[in-house]
C-alpha cells in the first residue's frame, strides 16, 4: 500500500456484502427495547407524568422519569444545561420526558404513546432577535445573560469605521435555514452490563471518549464503570458529535434487570430530537476602494442554538472567525450572537458555522464586484489571502495557503472561460447563470483546546500489523486511510493489516471525529508509531538472521535479507520482540502564534481553501433550479487517497446543494412540520450533477504526507455559488435560503425590491 494511490477502502467489502455490524445491527436472544416519550410542547413547566397505563401494559419492564436519574441529570459539553430526562421545565418539543423499557418494539410504542405529559405551557421564543428583546420569555432562568448564550466580538484595525475609508460599500443581509443531517443510520445503540458490572455502550458516535465522561457526569457514575465502543457509523456529519442515545442507554441498563438494551430512533424521532445545523441571520456591510482592494467589513451574525448549549456557541464563534472569508481585510468588526430559543436544539454539522458565514460573505463579494463593475474572479483574486497575510481576525497565514492557486485554476477552466456562450444558449423559458465562491476552512480545534490524538500499533504474534484507532469513522474513510499509512510506512499489503475501532478500553484517546482533523492528527501520531515499530522490526530481524540492518527490507508478511533473498516471517520477528511488539505515540497539532484573546477559545492556525463554480439553469415557469455543472478546486494539501478525497468533495457538494436548494426544514412555533424524508427533501441521484474535482496538491508541511483537512471545506461552497448564479440568471437576489422553486418563482413575480428579493 502506497501513499497517493486509490487503495480500495478496508471496510468496503464488509459493507458491500452486508457483513459489517453497525450500532443499529445489535440484537440478542433476550433483550429490551428502550424508547423515549418526548414532550410535544416547545416550552412549559412540567407538572406531572402520567405513566400508570404504560406501567400496567404486559411486556413493559420499566418506565423511568427524572426521579429515577441518579446524579445531576445534566448533560452538555461546555455547559451542562440539558436534562437527560426533563425535570421542572420543558424547553423543546423533542425533550425526553420518560424512558420506557419493553420486551418488543410494538409494546414499546404502545407504552410510549399511552404516557401523558402534564405541563403548564409557557410562551415560547422562536426568533433569534426577538429572543434578545427585553422582556422575552427566558429559556433558562438561571443563565446570567438571559437568552444570549454567547456573544463573540472581533475588532481588527479600525473596525467598522474602516467603512469610511471605502469608495464602495455594499449592504446585504441573508438568512440560512436549519439543516437536518439525514444520515442513513438514525441514532442507535446497544448497551449491557458485563460480568464485572461495567456498563458497555456500543453506539453510533463520533465522540466515544468524551461521551464516557459526559454520561458519567450526567448520571453521577464513576467513568470507570463505563465503556464506550464506536463501530463504523452509518453517517453522522456532526449530528453524532455528542450524546444521542448514550446517557439514556446507560440509565436503561441500570434498570434492565441484567438484560441488554437496544435503542434506535426512528426517522421522525431523529428529525425531532436530533440536532440541526444552526439557522443564521447575517447582516453584512463590505467595502472596498475603487481599485478593488477590500478595506472593511462590519457584520453581525445571529445563530439559533435552540434550547441547549451543546456546541452552538463554539459553532457561532467559528462563523465569526470565518466571517471575512479567505480574504485580507484590514478593518473588521464582526459580532456573533448565539441565542437560546425553543426551537429544536442545534449542533455540529459538517462545516461548523462556516457554511452560514460563507453563504452571506460570498454573495456580498459578488454584490461588491457589481458595484465596482469588476469581474467577480478579478475582485476575489485581488484580495485572496497569500502566505504571510493576516486573515480577517488578524491571524497570520504561516502554513500552506494556496487560495490563489484554487481560484486561478478555476479561472482557467473551460467551465468558466466559456460561460458567456453557455449562458446565451439557454432554451425557451430557461435562464442560465454561472456563480462562484471562494472558501477557507480551519482545521482542528481552536488554540485553547489541545488538539491531540494517540496512535497505537502492534505486531501481533501471528505477524499481522494491528492499528488501534480511537477516532471514529463515520463513513469518510479515515480508518482505511490509517491502514494505508501503516501499510506504506511498514511496506505491508492490505492482507497483513487489521484495525481496532474506537473502544475506550482498547484504543487511546483521540478526541472527536470532527473538525476536518481525523487524518491529520491521528495520521501524524500513527506515522511516528509505525516508523518506530519499523525500526524495531528491522533491528530484531538483524539479530535473528544475523546480519547488518542495511541488508534488510520489509516486505509484505516478512523481512527480506536482500543479499541472500531469505525472508523471515513477521510472526518470528514478533516472538523475538515480545514486549516491544506494540508502540504508542501521541501527537499534538501546532497552534497559531497569535494571542488566545483574539477570539473565544483562541484562533486556528491551519486552513484549507477552495474555489467553486456552478452552472445553473432556472425554469422561468416553475422557479426550479437545475444544477448543470459543478467545479471544485481544493487546497487540502497532498492527497493520500484520491478516490477517498474525491468522495469527500463530491459528497460535501451534494450536501451543500441540498442545503442551498431544497432542504427546507419546516417549523411552526417550535414544532417540526418536516417529519419524514418525503417532506424534507435531500438530493437524489437526479438532483446533483457529476462534479469535476481538482486538487492543488501542494504540501502542508506539518501534515501526514503533506495532507490537511478535506472533510468539510467543500460543503460551504454550493450555497453561495448557487445563489450568485441564480441572481445572475434572474436579476433578483433572494434574502433567505433555501432557494426553492417556490421562493424563486415568487421572487421573479415580485421583481427586484419585492418581499422575497432585493435588487442584486
Amino acid at each position, binding site marked *: 500500500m502506497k501513499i497517493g494511490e486509490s487503495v480500495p477502502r478496508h471496510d468496503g467489502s464488509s459493507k458491500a*456484502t452486508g457483513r459489517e455490524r453497525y450500532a443499529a445491527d445489535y440484537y440478542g436472544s433476550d433483550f429490551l427495547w428502550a424508547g423515549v416519550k418526548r414532550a410535544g410542547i416547545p416550552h412549559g413547566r412540567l407538572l406531572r407524568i402520567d405513566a400508570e397505563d404504560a406501567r400496567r401494559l404486559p411486556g413493559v419492564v420499566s418506565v423511568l422519569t427524572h426521579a429515577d436519574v441518579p446524579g445531576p441529570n445534566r448533560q452538555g459539553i461546555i455547559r451542562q444545561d440539558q436534562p437527560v430526562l426533563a425535570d421542572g421545565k420543558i424547553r423543546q418539543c423533542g425533550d425526553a420526558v420518560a424512558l420506557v423499557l419493553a420486551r418488543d418494539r410494538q409494546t414499546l410504542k404502545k407504552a410510549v404513546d399511552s404516557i401523558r405529559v402534564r405541563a403548564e405551557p409557557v410562551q415560547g421564543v422562536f426568533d433569534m432577535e426577538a429572543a434578545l428583546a427585553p422582556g422575552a420569555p427566558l429559556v433558562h432562568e438561571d443563565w446570567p445573560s438571559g437568552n444570549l448564550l454567547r456573544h463573540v466580538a472581533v475588532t481588527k484595525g479600525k473596525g467598522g469605521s474602516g467603512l469610511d475609508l471605502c469608495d464602495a460599500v455594499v449592504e446585504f443581509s441573508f438568512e440560512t435555514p436549519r439543516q437536518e443531517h439525514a444520515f442513513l443510520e438514525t441514532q442507535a445503540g446497544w448497551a449491557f452490563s458485563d460480568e464485572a458490572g461495567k456498563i458497555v455502550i456500543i453506539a453510533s458516535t463520533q465522540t466515544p471518549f468524551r461521551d464516557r465522561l459526559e454520561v458519567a457526569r450526567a448520571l453521577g457514575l464513576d467513568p470507570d464503570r463505563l465503556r464506550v465502543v464506536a463501530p463504523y457509523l452509518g453517517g453522522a456529519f456532526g449530528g453524532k458529535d455528542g450524546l444521542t442515545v448514550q446517557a439514556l442507554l446507560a440509565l436503561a441498563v441500570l434498570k434492565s434487570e441484567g438484560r441488554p438494551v437496544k435503542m434506535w430512533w426512528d426517522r421522525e424521532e431523529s428529525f425531532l430530537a436530533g440536532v440541526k445545523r444552526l439557522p443564521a441571520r447575517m447582516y453584512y456591510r463590505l467595502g472596498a476602494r475603487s481599485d478593488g482592494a477590500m478595506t472593511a467589513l462590519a457584520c453581525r451574525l445571529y445563530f439559533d442554538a435552540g434550547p441547549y448549549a451543546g456546541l452552538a456557541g463554539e459553532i457561532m464563534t467559528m462563523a465569526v472567525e470565518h466571517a471575512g472569508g479567505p480574504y485580507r481585510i484590514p478593518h473588521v468588526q464582526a459580532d456573533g450572537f448565539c441565542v437560546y430559543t425553543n426551537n429544536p436544539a442545534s449542533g455540529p454539522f459538517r462545516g461548523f458555522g462556516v457554511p452560514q458565514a460563507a453563504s452571506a460573505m460570498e454573495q456580498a463579494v459578488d454584490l461588491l464586484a457589481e458595484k465596482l463593475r469588476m469581474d467577480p474572479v478579478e475582485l476575489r483574486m485581488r484580495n485572496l489571502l497569500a502566505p504571510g497575510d493576516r486573515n480577517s481576525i488578524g491571524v497570520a497565514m504561516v502554513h500552506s495557503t494556496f487560495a490563489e492557486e484554487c481560484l486561478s485554476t478555476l479561472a482557467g477552466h473551460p467551465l468558466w472561460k466559456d460561460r458567456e456562450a453557455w449562458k446565451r444558449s439557454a432554451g425557451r423559458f430557461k435562464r442560465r447563470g454561472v456563480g462562484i465562491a471562494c472558501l477557507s476552512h480551519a482545521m482542528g480545534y481552536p488554540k485553547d483546546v489541545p488538539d491531540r490524538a494517540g496512535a497505537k500499533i502492534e505486531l501481533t504474534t501471528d505477524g499481522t500489523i494491528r492499528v488501534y484507532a480511537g477516532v471514529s469513522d463515520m463513513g469518510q474513510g479515515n480508518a482505511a486511510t490509517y491502514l494505508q499509512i501503516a501499510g506504506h510506512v511498514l511496506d505491508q499489503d492490505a492482507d497483513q493489516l487489521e484495525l481496532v475501532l474506537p473502544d475506550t478500553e482498547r484504543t487511546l484517546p483521540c478526541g472527536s471525529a470532527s473538525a476536518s482533523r481525523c487524518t491529520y492528527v491521528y495520521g501524524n501520531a500513527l506515522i511516528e508509531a509505525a516508523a518506530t515499530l519499523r525500526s524495531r522490526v528491522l533491528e530484531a530481524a538483524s539479530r535473528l538472521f544475523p546480519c547488518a540492518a542495511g541488508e534488510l527490507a520489509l516486505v509484505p508478511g516478512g523481512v527480506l535479507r536482500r543479499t541472500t533473498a531469505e525472508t523471515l516471517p513477521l510472526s518470528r520477528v514478533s516472538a523475538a520482540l515480545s514486549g516491544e511488539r506494540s508502540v504508542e505515540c501521541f501527537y499534538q497539532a501546532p497552534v497559531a502564534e497569535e494571542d488566545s484573546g483574539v477570539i473565544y477559545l483562541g484562533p486556528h492556525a491551519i486552513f484549507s481553501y477552495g474555489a467553486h463554480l456552478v452552472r445553473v439553469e432556472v425554469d422561468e415557469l416553475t422557479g426550479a433550479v437545475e444544477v448543470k455543472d459543478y467545479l471544485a478546486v481544493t487546497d487540502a494539501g497532498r492527497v493520500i487517497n484520491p478516490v477517498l478525497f474525491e468522495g469527500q468533495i463530491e459528497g460535501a457538494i451534494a450536501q451543500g446543494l441540498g442545503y442551498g436548494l431544497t432542504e427546507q426544514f419546516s417549523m411552526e412555533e417550535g414544532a417540526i412540520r418536516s417529519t419524514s424524508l418525503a417532506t424534507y427533501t435531500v438530493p437524489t441521484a437526479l438532483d446533483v450533477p457529476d462534479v469535476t474535482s481538482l486538487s492543488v496538491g501542494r504540501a502542508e508541511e506539518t501534515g501526514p504526507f503533506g495532507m490537511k483537512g478535506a472533510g468539510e471545506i467543500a460543503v460551504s461552497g454550493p450555497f453561495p455559488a448557487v445563489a450568485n448564479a441564480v441572481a445572475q440568471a434572474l436579476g433578483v437576489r433572494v434574502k433567505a435560503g433555501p432557494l426553492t422553486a417556490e421562493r424563486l418563482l415568487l421572487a421573479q413575480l415580485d421583481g427586484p425590491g419585492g418581499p422575497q428579493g432585493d435588487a442584486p
Partner: protein
Amino acid sequence: MKISFTLNGRATVVDADQDRRVVDLLREDLGLTGTKESCGTGECGACTILVDGESRLSCLMLASQLEGRAITTIEGIAPEGKAAGDVQEAFVAHGAVQCGFCTPGMILAVHDLLRRDRAPDRARIREAISGNLCRCTGYQKIVDAVCAVVSGRNGAAGGTRGGR
C-alpha cells in the same frame, strides 16, 4: 402463521405474525442485518430486497406477502462460491461505499436495473437509483461503479452509451 419462501436460494419456513414487517423478520428474527432500515416509510430505499428478482422495500412488506416468493438479500447476491458479486466488487473498487448504510439497498436496486437494461447510460443509472438515498457520496462514484459493471459484463467492446 407458517410462511414458506426461498431465501437466498434456500427453502425457508418461518413462524411469524402475518403482519410482521419483512425488514424486522429479516433483521431481528433471521439475523440478516445487511438489510438496513433508515426511514421505515418507503422513502429512502435502504431496506431494498429482491422479490422474484424485482426490487421491493422490505419496510413496506408484511411477512405474509413472502409466501411462495424467492427473496434475495444483500447476503445472498454473490454468485455461488464467491464472496462478492460484480456489482459489490465494483462498488468497493470505485469508491461507491462510504458509510455503507445505503450500500446494500443501492446494490440490490442496481441488480434490478441491470436485469431490465443491459447497457444503461449515466442518466438511466441515475434515474434507476433515484429511489435510493445516499447522504455521503453525492452518487457520482456509485454511477461510476455501475458503469464499470456494465463495461465488464458487456466486454471491452460493449461499454455504456455515452460517457461522462
